[in-house]
Every structure is written in structure tokens, then in C-alpha cells.
């Protein structure tokens, strides 16, 4: 009994780590660029696929993939921002959402053509195979690693944004980009780098997810809708808020899987409806 519960809670915690990483990236991008990056799920999928293709065709192992994939996918994101997204600043933010939705369809379609919709598995790196018996449950080493690293990256990003000079620029740009540019900061470059960083976070999550879930072209679209609900629940105003909401909802999902499995797919959306009733601005959001 306790073993099943803690097993489900662990799965919830892992899902929650991915929700946190993804909603953090969304929040950073939205904060500065005022764009909801619908392609976030596709970029997460892209990260997993780049790692998988690297291993299969070039023999690049997990550790190098973890380092290189976010750079590669982040650069692709910057190219996309420079060529396309940049043209929509100043318009209704809905257009940014629609443009990135189009990009998500293109990426999903390309990979579906190339690799079909069946899953490809990615091996757990040798160093992290096996696990530890904690007495009340068995803890696979790789899963513990995922939770720890996600938390480290999330809180590292939070620290950089809230406590460093670079983060101060970012926060100033979120408040008023025109004024910041007037003070001599290269704001367009900052926009590109911020988008690239958000996309790199998604790709990083994708590489981490590859050994846990199957690598499929559709892995992104199913997760992004949940992450959107997480963002609505948490409100995009606060970095820490989106991290905590992501983790919390992962746990709620895990708990639901234990209590009443059929409801686990819809529980996040039910929570979203509840939050809209009680606190429409989101748990950590400022009313606008």
C-alpha cells in the first residue's frame, strides 16, 4: 500500500519536475517577450530527438547530449526569434501564440514523417543505472537524478533572475523594455537570448525525459497542454510560483493516480477550473 503510494508520488514528482522546468521557460519568455511559446512542447520533443539521434547516428552519449542539445536547440530558437517572432512584437500577443503553434505543427509533422509515431527508447546512462532500496520503496537512481537536477536548474534560474545583475536587466526589461533600451542596454539581443534560454530549458527537459518516457514526435503536444494549465493555475507573474505550481501539480497527479486512476488525466484541468472560480488571477499571479 505505502509502496504503491510512494511509487505514484515519485512519478508525480518527476512529472512535476518537468512541468516546473517547462513552465519556468514559458514564464521567462512570456515575461520579457510577451509571447506564449506554444512551440515549447515541440522544442522539448526536439531536445529528446536530438539526443536520441546523436546517440544513434553519431554515438554522442548522454552526458554530452545533456550539455550540447540545449545549445543546439537554443540556437535554433534564436534563429526562429530573429527571422519570425521578431516581426510580431507590438502586435496582439495572440499572434505570437498562433505563430509558435504553427511552428509546433511543422516540427511535429517533420518528425512524424521521419520516424513514425511509435516510441523510441533511450538507454539510461551507465553511471545512473540501478537504484537504492529505501525500505518503504525502491528508488531508481536515474529518477532521483532527474528530480535533483531539475530542482537545481530551476532554483539556479530563479537565483540568476532575482539576485544577479543580469537578472536585474531581465526584470527591468519585463517592466519596461523601452526605458531599458534608453539606458543603453541592447534589448533586441536580450530578447533573442531570453528566447534562446527558454527554448534551451525545454530541450534540456527533453534530454532528461528521453530515458524515462518513450521518445516520440507526439511527446511534446500532450505535455504542453498540461503545462499551460499549470501556468494558468500558478499565474505567470512569478518565477518561484511557476516552479512550485509545477511540482505541486505533479504531486497532485500522482496522488490521483493512487486514489482514482481514471481521473489522473483530467485532475490538473479540474484544479484549473477550481482556481478560476476561487482566485482567477492564479495562485501566484497579480491581477491584471
Amino acid at each position: 500500500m505505502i509502496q504503491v503510494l510512494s511509487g505514484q508520488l515519485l512519478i508525480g514528482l518527476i512529472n512535476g519536475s518537468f512541468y516546473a522546468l517547462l513552465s519556468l521557460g514559458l514564464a521567462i519568455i512570456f515575461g520579457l517577450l510577451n509571447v506564449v511559446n506554444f512551440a515549447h512542447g515541440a522544442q522539448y520533443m526536439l531536445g529528446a530527438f536530438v539526443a536520441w539521434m546523436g546517440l544513434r547516428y553519431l554515438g554522442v552519449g548522454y552526458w554530452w547530449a545533456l550539455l550540447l542539445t540545449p545549445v543546439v536547440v537554443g540556437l535554433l530558437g534564436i534563429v526562429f526569434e530573429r527571422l519570425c517572432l521578431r516581426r510580431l512584437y507590438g502586435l496582439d500577443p495572440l499572434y505570437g501564440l498562433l505563430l509558435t503553434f504553427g511552428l509546433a505543427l511543422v516540427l511535429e509533422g517533420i518528425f512524424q514523417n521521419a520516424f513514425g509515431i511509435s516510441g523510441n527508447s533511450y538507454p539510461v546512462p551507465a553511471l545512473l543505472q540501478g537504484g537504492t532500496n529505501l525500505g518503504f520503496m525502491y528508488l531508481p537512481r536515474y529518477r532521483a537524478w532527474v528530480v535533483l537536477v531539475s530542482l537545481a536548474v530551476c532554483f539556479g534560474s530563479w537565483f540568476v533572475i532575482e539576485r544577479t545583475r543580469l537578472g536585474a536587466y531581465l526584470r527591468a526589461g519585463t517592466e519596461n523594455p523601452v526605458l531599458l533600451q534608453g539606458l543603453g542596454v541592447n534589448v533586441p539581443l536580450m530578447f533573442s537570448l531570453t528566447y534562446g534560454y527558454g527554448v534551451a530549458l525545454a530541450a534540456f527537459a527533453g534530454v532528461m525525459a528521453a530515458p524515462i518516457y518513450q521518445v516520440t514526435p507526439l511527446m511534446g503536444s500532450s505535455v504542453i497542454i498540461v503545462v499551460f494549465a499549470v501556468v494558468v493555475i500558478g499565474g505567470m507573474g512569478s518565477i518561484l510560483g511557476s516552479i512550485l505550481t509545477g511540482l505541486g501539480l505533479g504531486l497532485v497527479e500522482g496522488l490521483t493516480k493512487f486514489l482514482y486512476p481514471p481521473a489522473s488525466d483530467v485532475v490538473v484541468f479540474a484544479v484549473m477550473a477550481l482556481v478560476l472560480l476561487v482566485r482567477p488571477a492564479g495562485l501566484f499571479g497579480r491581477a491584471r
Partner: protein
Amino acid sequence: MSRPVPLATWGYALLVLLGLTAPFFVYPVFAMNVLCLALFASAFNLLLGYTGLLSFGHAAFLGAAAYVTGLAVKGWGLPVEAGILAGTLSAALLGLVFGALAIRRSGIYFAMITLGFAQMVYFLVLQMPWTGGEDGLQGIPRSRLLGLVGLSGNLPMYYFVYALFLAGFWVIYRTIHSPFGQVLRAIRENEPRAISLGYDVDRYKLLAFVISAGLSGMAGAMKALVFQSATLSDVDWHRSGAVILMTLLGGMGTPFGPSVGALLVVGLENYLAGTGSWVTVITGGVFMACVLAFRRGIVGEVVALVKRSF
């Protein structure tokens, strides 16, 4: 805003004529599919084009109504008219619930909320015992209309669908050109100002949402009868994306745009049906091109061209 009245009248006449003769030129099932999705996109346009609300979950209303109609006609043996009515009403009811919650936020949050609710409907449809899960509802009978006219042939079915389409389109057209529609446009242009003028903006938005959901439901009910099935692809979020594309491509905020967009998107999907996932890639590419270079859509560009020339 000055309305190009003669152009609209000509467009109307052309549309009616085209609709009456279409089944003799193209495969009737294709034409019916276009009509269903044109009504769906027109209902969606009432929300996006005229109220400024982007719903990313409209497939929920299309799909839910398709399933309810299927259940009513096949499971309970109700006549066709009652089945369509049941589908339309259930979609409107669903719209009332989702709308009341979603309009508490605006802009991009509204889009994400409706997407989430639609995904919830998707999972419910997938898991409920009477929906046939992955297979969907198959073999929905097309019985007799009012007990008199048999609908099993494609030609009578076409004219039935066409009549319903015209009725639905007329409701949308009247809504747009009523004082109510003017208030919706005022909300789209400047919501704080509409509030300051004393309009209860939330009630207007909610009513627009319910009308849009109900008519989307009617489109779904018709679609279920045309194909004699209700499938998961009707509730899927790709469908919600497709209806946005139809509206955007045809021209949002124009009465005819969504129908033109529906014709093009359904045509494209049919034409590319054999090429696997390239449909997705090309759909996405057209999407990006529309947003980047072509935000007024086809009908919007034509209207702008005519206005400039005369």
C-alpha cells in the same frame, strides 16, 4: 465602419448559388464536410473575429455534439431532428459552463484555459463507456427527416445539411449585424471603454460564447450524421487549431472569410490525404505564413483591395 453592402449582397447570392449546384460538380460528401466545417468556422469567427476572444478549444463543442447526436440517434433511437437538437443544446450547455469560467481571464490566458477544458473533454470522451474509446461511435443511422424524406442518399442529405448551414449562417449574420453584435465589436476594440459606457461586458462575452458553442455543436451534429460516425479526431486539439487556421486564412472578422478558409483547408487536407504527416507540416507552414504576412486573410485582403480601388 462603412459596410460594402453591394459586395456582401453579391457574395451572398454567389454563395447560395454555389451551394445549390455544388453536389453536381463535386463529391457530395466532400461538399457536406466543407459546409459543416464552414459553419463551425463561422461560429468560431463570431468569437475571434467579432468579440476578440481566441478560444483554443472549440473542437470540444464540435466533438461533444457529434457524440451526443450519435448517442441520441443510434443509442436511444431518436429521430434525426431531435438528435441534432440534442447535440446543439448539449454543446451550448457545455459552452455556458466553460465560458462562465474562461471569461474570468482574458487574452492569452483565455486561449490556454479553453485549450485545457477541451483537453478535459477529450479525456472524458476517451474514457466514458458509451463513446467507443479509440474507435469512436460507428454506424450512426441516417433515418428519415420528419419521418418523410429518407436521408440515406447523399443528395437529399446534402440539401438537408445545406439548409441547416444557411440557417446557422443566418443566425450568425443577424447576430453580427444586430445592436448586440455592435456591442461585441466595441468590446473587441476597447473593453475598458465598453465597460465605462455601462455595458455588462461579461454577460455579452458569455452570450457570444454560448451562441458560438451552440452553433459549433450544430456543425458537429451535422458532421456526425454525414459521416455516420463520431471520432476522437473531432475532439482533438488539432481540430481546434484547424478551425483557427480556417478563420485566419479566410479572414477573421469578415462574414464570408471562415467559409472560404474552410473550403481551402478541407480541400488541402483532401488533396494531401495520401501523404501522411505532410498535411501537418504544410498546415503549420500556412499558419506561420498567415500570421507573418497575411493577417487580414483572403477575404480581408479582397475587401481592402476593393475599398482602395473604388
